[in-house]
């Protein structure tokens, strides 16, 4: 099937690769988060991400794409005309790429943004309630906000003329504010501030962070939706800000804790990458350096707030994504350079306070909307289904209780010893008086 003439193979290749890269961020996030929790709920953490990937994808096909990018209704939301991708075939084009490639790319953004939220409620959420929340949240929060900012006819894009190439508002501030609301509704983990809740596997965290960084090139540079100068500057800015974020966070640690930690290094990387997400297509590499550094520093301080103020945003969604996204979104108003944006300039380059004001307004509106709606949704689900597991289940760990699994069986020579399959199978050997009918191996 020959391509429509409007399709550029190079641009399409880049966007498809970028979509795959963003997809990889979801297992990356799962490992990043999963390594950071205690071993007894590690699988639950993985599952919250994995199910986002599954559930949001299905919702996206059914109606999500259409709400976010279907024909505009008043700058606020898309209509349902494109639900089920009806009428969108292989020849449909968006810009210089197939619409289905664009839809696949944007799908991944929705899925990972939802997955980000799971970090704020580690170790204590009912699994079914989480799934319900995810479906409600993407519908009520993510799709509209994506329409406002990413769709050319959305009100933030069309009227506020906010610069946000890859989602400082849609993804980062949105997830930060929503995560905070979730953490408040669910309350603190048992033992918060008393028991150590240290990462059970930092190599897993590093691996996850590595995949996140790698995928972020698709996230940011892929948002150019074409393969050329804009993608290239977004690419190198991403790299530079991630690097600077590492240095920013480690700097804070060395000053405060006297140790440069591995967890700090990768947390700083994520903070820097978050910071540059909105700005990657508006600043030059030196600007990216500043943004990454400040995002790293700000997030390193922000994560301590939860102990001071007593909310349990367990894996620091607000502290890293909220704060980092805010830093980046605002600093566009300072550091945007006309050589990169092709027009708009920040305060530092003589653009005055105009752009900065627009950026701040968008940040506040998105943050407030996300916080309020997420709080309402979470509260509603809590009333309806309960959102938090019982005390005993939380102490025992969600892996065993909810998923019937444990993460590892490597702790030495009892690995595999002292277990029995079902009842009858082992009993046929050791406990012959038991009833063979209780066999539990299922077809």
């Amino acid at each position, binding site marked *: 099937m020959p391509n429509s003439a409007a399709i550029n193979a190079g641009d399409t290749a880049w966007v498809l690769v970028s979509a795959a890269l963003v997809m990889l961020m979801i297992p990356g996030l799962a490992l990043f988060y999963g390594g950071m929790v205690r071993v007894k709920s590690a699988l639950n953490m993985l599952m919250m991400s994995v199910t986002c990937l599954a559930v949001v994808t299905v919702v996206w096909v059914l109606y999500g794409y259409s709400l976010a990018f279907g024909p505009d209704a008043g700058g606020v939301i898309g209509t349902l005309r494109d639900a089920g991708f009806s009428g969108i075939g292989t020849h449909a084009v968006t810009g210089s790429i197939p619409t289905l490639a664009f839809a696949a790319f944007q799908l991944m953004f929705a899925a990972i943004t939802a997955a980000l939220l799971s970090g704020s409620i580690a170790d204590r959420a009912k699994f079914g309630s989480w799934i319900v929340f995810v479906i409600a949240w993407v519908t009520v929060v993510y799709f509209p906000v994506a329409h406002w900012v990413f769709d050319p006819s959305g009100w933030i894009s069309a009227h506020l003329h906010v610069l946000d190439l890859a989602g400082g508002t849609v993804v980062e501030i949105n997830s930060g504010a929503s995560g905070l609301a979730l953490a408040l509704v669910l309350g603190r983990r048992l033992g918060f501030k008393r028991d150590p809740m240290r990462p059970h596997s930092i190599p897993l965290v590093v691996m996850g962070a590595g995949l996140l960084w790698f995928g972020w090139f698709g996230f940011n540079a892929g948002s150019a939706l074409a393969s050329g100068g804009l993608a290239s500057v977004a690419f190198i800015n991403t790299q530079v800000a991630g690097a600077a974020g590492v240095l920013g966070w480690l700097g804070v640690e060395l000053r405060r804790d006297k140790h440069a930690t591995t967890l700090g290094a990768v947390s700083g990387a994520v903070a820097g990458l978050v910071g540059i997400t909105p700005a990657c297509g508006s600043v030059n590499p030196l600007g990216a350096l500043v943004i990454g550094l400040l995002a790293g520093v700000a997030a390193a301080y922000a994560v301590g707030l939860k102990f001071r103020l007593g909310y349990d945003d367990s894996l620091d969604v607000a502290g890293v994504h909220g704060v980092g996204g805010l830093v980046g979104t605002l600093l566009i108003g300072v550091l945007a350079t006309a050589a990169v944006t092709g027009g708009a300039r920040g305060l530092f380059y003589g653009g005055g306070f105009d752009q900065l004001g627009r950026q701040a307004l968008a940040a506040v509106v998105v943050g407030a909307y996300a916080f309020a709606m997420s709080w309402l949704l979470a509260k509603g689900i809590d009333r309806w289904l309960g959102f938090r597991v019982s005390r005993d289940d939380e102490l025992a760990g969600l892996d065993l209780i909810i998923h019937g*699994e444990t993460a590892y069986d490597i702790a030495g020579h009892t690995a595999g010893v002292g*277990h*029995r399959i*079902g009842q009858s199978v082992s009993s046929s050997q050791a406990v012959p008086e038991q009833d063979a009918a209780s066999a*539990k*191996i*299922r077809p």
Partner: protein
Amino acid sequence: MRLITAVIKPFKLDDVKAALEAFGVHGLTVSEASGFGRQAGHTEVYRGAEYQVDLVPKLRLEVVCDDDDADDLIEAIASAARTGKIGDGKVWSVPVEAVVRVRTGERGSAAL
């Protein structure tokens, strides 16, 4: 001298340790263990096959103490470790003939 061994639920360690410290005992040795007993294990499922895991995680504590303290200490440990639910564990004591502090070679009570 006596050696008191206690098999307890893992999350009770901090309580037992506090009880020992309140008693003036500042040393103990902990190791991981698993127990079979009345307490039921749990079930895990992998690709549809159910596994019954009978071994229950426990901690095993050892405290060497003076003969006179033994009974009180056993009592203190048992109450600190008690939840009242099945599987709380056991505490037992055995007679010790000699004890040495490796660092100094001191023996007996002085070694504790």
